[in-house]
Protein backbone atom coordinates (compact mmCIF):
# COMPACT_ATOMS: atom_id res chain seq x y z
CA UNK A 1 0.00 0.00 0.00
CA UNK A 2 1.38 3.36 -1.02
CA UNK A 3 1.49 6.07 1.61
CA UNK A 4 -0.11 8.57 -0.76
CA UNK A 5 -3.85 8.64 -0.44
CA UNK A 6 -6.61 10.84 -1.74
CA UNK A 7 -8.20 12.87 1.07
CA UNK A 8 -11.56 14.45 0.22
CA UNK A 9 -12.92 17.11 2.55
CA UNK A 10 -16.68 17.64 2.34
CA UNK A 11 -17.72 21.08 3.62
CA UNK A 12 -21.47 21.48 4.02
CA UNK A 13 -22.05 24.14 6.68
CA UNK A 14 -22.16 27.93 6.70
CA UNK A 15 -19.27 29.64 8.51
CA UNK A 16 -19.50 31.19 12.03
CA UNK A 17 -22.76 29.44 13.04
CA UNK A 18 -20.51 26.54 13.99
CA UNK A 19 -16.76 25.97 14.22
CA UNK A 20 -16.63 23.32 11.51
CA UNK A 21 -15.59 25.60 8.63
CA UNK A 22 -12.66 26.95 10.65
CA UNK A 23 -11.59 23.51 11.83
CA UNK A 24 -11.80 22.04 8.34
CA UNK A 25 -9.30 24.66 7.18
CA UNK A 26 -7.03 23.79 10.13
CA UNK A 27 -6.99 20.11 9.20
CA UNK A 28 -6.33 20.89 5.55
CA UNK A 29 -3.35 23.11 6.44
CA UNK A 30 -1.90 20.59 8.93
CA UNK A 31 -2.57 17.81 6.45
CA UNK A 32 -0.58 19.58 3.75
CA UNK A 33 2.62 18.50 5.51
CA UNK A 34 1.69 14.88 4.84
CA UNK A 35 1.85 15.38 1.07
CA UNK A 36 -1.33 13.52 0.27
CA UNK A 37 -3.61 14.15 -2.69
CA UNK A 38 -6.16 16.65 -1.35
CA UNK A 39 -9.55 17.65 -2.75
CA UNK A 40 -11.95 20.12 -1.15
CA UNK A 41 -15.68 19.98 -1.84
CA UNK A 42 -18.01 22.85 -0.95
CA UNK A 43 -21.67 21.89 -1.20
CA UNK A 44 -24.98 22.73 0.51
CA UNK A 45 -24.43 25.67 2.91
CA UNK A 46 -20.69 25.02 2.67
CA UNK A 47 -20.62 27.31 -0.37
CA UNK A 48 -21.10 30.27 2.03
CA UNK A 49 -17.62 29.57 3.44
CA UNK A 50 -16.07 31.16 0.35
CA UNK A 51 -18.15 34.36 0.11
CA UNK A 52 -16.29 37.63 -0.38
CA UNK A 53 -16.23 40.38 2.27
CA UNK A 54 -16.82 38.28 5.36
CA UNK A 55 -16.67 40.46 8.48
CA UNK A 56 -17.43 38.65 11.74
CA UNK A 57 -15.82 41.31 13.96
CA UNK A 58 -19.15 42.56 15.32
CA UNK A 59 -20.01 39.06 16.53
CA UNK A 60 -16.63 38.82 18.22
CA UNK A 61 -15.11 36.24 15.91
CA UNK A 62 -11.96 36.06 13.85
CA UNK A 63 -12.19 36.43 10.07
CA UNK A 64 -10.47 33.28 8.84
CA UNK A 65 -11.74 33.57 5.28
CA UNK A 66 -8.50 35.19 4.05
CA UNK A 67 -6.74 31.90 4.73
CA UNK A 68 -8.46 30.17 1.82
CA UNK A 69 -6.35 32.32 -0.53
CA UNK A 70 -3.22 30.69 0.91
CA UNK A 71 -4.34 27.15 0.04
CA UNK A 72 -2.65 27.33 -3.37
CA UNK A 73 0.71 27.86 -1.67
CA UNK A 74 0.17 24.61 0.22
CA UNK A 75 -0.46 22.71 -3.04
CA UNK A 76 -4.16 22.50 -2.22
CA UNK A 77 -5.57 23.43 -5.59
CA UNK A 78 -8.37 20.98 -6.30
CA UNK A 79 -11.40 22.87 -5.07
CA UNK A 80 -14.82 21.69 -6.19
CA UNK A 81 -17.92 23.82 -5.80
CA UNK A 82 -21.35 22.31 -6.29
CA UNK A 83 -23.23 24.32 -8.90
CA UNK A 84 -26.67 23.21 -7.71
CA UNK A 85 -25.94 24.41 -4.17
CA UNK A 86 -24.97 27.84 -5.54
CA UNK A 87 -28.09 28.09 -7.67
CA UNK A 88 -30.43 27.07 -4.87
CA UNK A 89 -28.98 29.93 -2.81
CA UNK A 90 -29.12 32.57 -5.54
CA UNK A 91 -25.34 32.68 -5.72
CA UNK A 92 -22.83 32.51 -8.55
CA UNK A 93 -19.06 32.08 -8.67
CA UNK A 94 -18.77 35.91 -8.75
CA UNK A 95 -19.95 35.97 -5.15
CA UNK A 96 -17.07 33.74 -4.05
CA UNK A 97 -13.37 34.29 -3.61
CA UNK A 98 -11.24 33.58 -6.67
CA UNK A 99 -8.75 30.97 -5.48
CA UNK A 100 -5.64 30.43 -7.57
CA UNK A 101 -2.34 28.57 -7.59
CA UNK A 102 0.89 28.70 -9.58
CA UNK A 103 1.35 25.64 -11.77
CA UNK A 104 4.96 24.47 -11.45
CA UNK A 105 4.53 22.19 -14.48
CA UNK A 106 3.49 25.15 -16.64
CA UNK A 107 6.16 27.77 -15.93
CA UNK A 108 4.40 28.84 -12.71
CA UNK A 109 1.41 30.17 -14.61
CA UNK A 110 -1.40 31.35 -12.30
CA UNK A 111 -4.44 29.10 -12.62
CA UNK A 112 -7.78 28.86 -10.91
CA UNK A 113 -8.13 26.20 -8.21
CA UNK A 114 -11.90 26.30 -8.46
CA UNK A 115 -13.96 23.81 -10.44
CA UNK A 116 -17.70 24.15 -10.72
CA UNK A 117 -19.20 20.65 -10.62
CA UNK A 118 -22.57 18.93 -10.81
CA UNK A 119 -23.80 16.12 -8.58
CA UNK A 120 -22.67 13.48 -11.08
CA UNK A 121 -19.14 14.85 -10.87
CA UNK A 122 -19.39 15.03 -7.07
CA UNK A 123 -20.16 11.30 -7.09
CA UNK A 124 -16.93 10.70 -8.97
CA UNK A 125 -14.94 12.84 -6.53
CA UNK A 126 -16.33 10.88 -3.58
CA UNK A 127 -15.51 7.62 -5.37
CA UNK A 128 -11.95 8.84 -5.90
CA UNK A 129 -11.40 9.19 -2.15
CA UNK A 130 -9.42 6.92 0.11
CA UNK A 131 -10.36 9.03 3.12
CA UNK A 132 -13.41 11.27 3.49
CA UNK A 133 -13.49 13.98 6.14
CA UNK A 134 -16.80 15.70 6.83
CA UNK A 135 -17.25 19.19 8.23
Amino acid at each position, binding site marked *: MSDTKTFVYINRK*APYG*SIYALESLEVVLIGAAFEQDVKLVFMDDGVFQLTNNQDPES*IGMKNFSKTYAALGDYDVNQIYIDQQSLEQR*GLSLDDLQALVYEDEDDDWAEKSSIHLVNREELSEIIESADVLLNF
Partner: protein
Amino acid sequence: MSTLHTVNKSAFERNSLESCLSVCKANASVLLIEDAVVSALQNTTISEQISAAANTGVKFFALSEDLRARGLSDRRVMDEVTLVDYAGFVKLTTENDRVQNWL
Protein backbone atom coordinates in the same frame (compact mmCIF):
# COMPACT_ATOMS: atom_id res chain seq x y z
CA MET B 1 -50.99 39.87 21.49
CA SER B 2 -48.13 38.87 19.23
CA THR B 3 -45.22 36.45 19.18
CA LEU B 4 -41.60 36.88 18.15
CA HIS B 5 -40.21 33.73 16.57
CA THR B 6 -36.47 33.29 16.21
CA VAL B 7 -34.86 30.80 13.82
CA ASN B 8 -31.12 30.14 13.99
CA LYS B 9 -30.45 27.45 11.39
CA SER B 10 -30.39 27.64 7.60
CA ALA B 11 -33.67 26.68 5.95
CA PHE B 12 -31.59 24.87 3.31
CA GLU B 13 -30.34 22.52 6.03
CA ARG B 14 -33.17 22.16 8.57
CA ASN B 15 -36.93 22.22 8.87
CA SER B 16 -37.14 24.80 11.67
CA LEU B 17 -38.13 27.79 9.48
CA GLU B 18 -40.78 25.69 7.76
CA SER B 19 -42.23 24.54 11.09
CA CYS B 20 -42.13 28.11 12.34
CA LEU B 21 -43.99 29.48 9.32
CA SER B 22 -46.63 26.75 9.57
CA VAL B 23 -47.77 28.10 12.95
CA CYS B 24 -47.09 31.82 12.41
CA LYS B 25 -49.99 34.18 12.86
CA ALA B 26 -50.49 37.21 10.64
CA ASN B 27 -49.26 39.58 13.36
CA ALA B 28 -46.16 37.50 14.20
CA SER B 29 -42.56 38.56 13.68
CA VAL B 30 -39.84 36.17 12.55
CA LEU B 31 -36.21 37.04 13.27
CA LEU B 32 -33.46 35.16 11.42
CA ILE B 33 -30.20 34.88 13.40
CA GLU B 34 -26.91 32.96 13.18
CA ASP B 35 -26.82 30.65 10.13
CA ALA B 36 -30.51 31.32 9.48
CA VAL B 37 -29.65 34.69 7.91
CA VAL B 38 -28.84 32.84 4.69
CA SER B 39 -32.58 32.12 4.42
CA ALA B 40 -33.15 35.86 3.84
CA LEU B 41 -31.35 35.98 0.49
CA GLN B 42 -33.05 36.88 -2.80
CA ASN B 43 -33.78 34.36 -5.52
CA THR B 44 -33.31 31.20 -3.54
CA THR B 45 -35.41 28.05 -3.21
CA ILE B 46 -36.63 29.51 0.10
CA SER B 47 -37.55 33.04 -1.00
CA GLU B 48 -41.04 32.12 -2.12
CA GLN B 49 -42.00 30.70 1.28
CA ILE B 50 -40.92 33.93 2.91
CA SER B 51 -42.77 36.08 0.36
CA ALA B 52 -45.93 34.05 0.83
CA ALA B 53 -45.81 34.41 4.61
CA ALA B 54 -45.00 38.12 4.33
CA ASN B 55 -48.08 38.53 2.14
CA THR B 56 -50.24 37.13 4.93
CA GLY B 57 -48.86 39.79 7.27
CA VAL B 58 -45.91 38.06 8.95
CA LYS B 59 -43.03 40.49 9.49
CA PHE B 60 -39.49 39.28 8.76
CA PHE B 61 -36.23 40.49 10.27
CA ALA B 62 -32.60 39.39 9.96
CA LEU B 63 -29.70 40.14 12.28
CA SER B 64 -27.33 42.46 10.38
CA GLU B 65 -24.25 41.40 12.37
CA ASP B 66 -24.77 37.78 11.29
CA LEU B 67 -25.28 38.80 7.64
CA ARG B 68 -22.14 40.92 7.65
CA ALA B 69 -20.11 38.10 9.25
CA ARG B 70 -21.01 35.84 6.34
CA GLY B 71 -20.23 38.43 3.65
CA LEU B 72 -23.91 38.86 2.76
CA SER B 73 -24.65 42.53 2.16
CA ASP B 74 -28.03 44.24 2.54
CA ARG B 75 -28.32 44.42 -1.25
CA ARG B 76 -28.77 40.66 -1.45
CA VAL B 77 -31.52 40.47 1.17
CA MET B 78 -35.18 40.17 0.16
CA ASP B 79 -37.24 43.38 0.29
CA GLU B 80 -39.61 41.65 2.68
CA VAL B 81 -36.86 41.31 5.31
CA THR B 82 -35.92 44.21 7.59
CA LEU B 83 -32.39 44.33 8.99
CA VAL B 84 -31.93 44.82 12.74
CA ASP B 85 -28.86 44.92 14.96
CA TYR B 86 -28.62 43.41 18.47
CA ALA B 87 -30.32 46.50 19.95
CA GLY B 88 -33.14 45.92 17.48
CA PHE B 89 -33.27 42.24 18.49
CA VAL B 90 -33.77 43.30 22.12
CA LYS B 91 -36.45 45.78 21.05
CA LEU B 92 -38.33 43.07 19.13
CA THR B 93 -38.45 40.87 22.22
CA THR B 94 -40.04 43.71 24.22
CA GLU B 95 -42.50 44.76 21.50
CA ASN B 96 -43.88 41.23 21.26
CA ASP B 97 -45.56 39.40 24.14
CA ARG B 98 -43.47 36.25 24.06
CA VAL B 99 -40.55 34.68 22.25
CA GLN B 100 -40.59 31.28 20.58
CA ASN B 101 -37.03 30.14 19.80
CA TRP B 102 -37.11 27.40 17.14
CA LEU B 103 -34.06 25.28 17.84
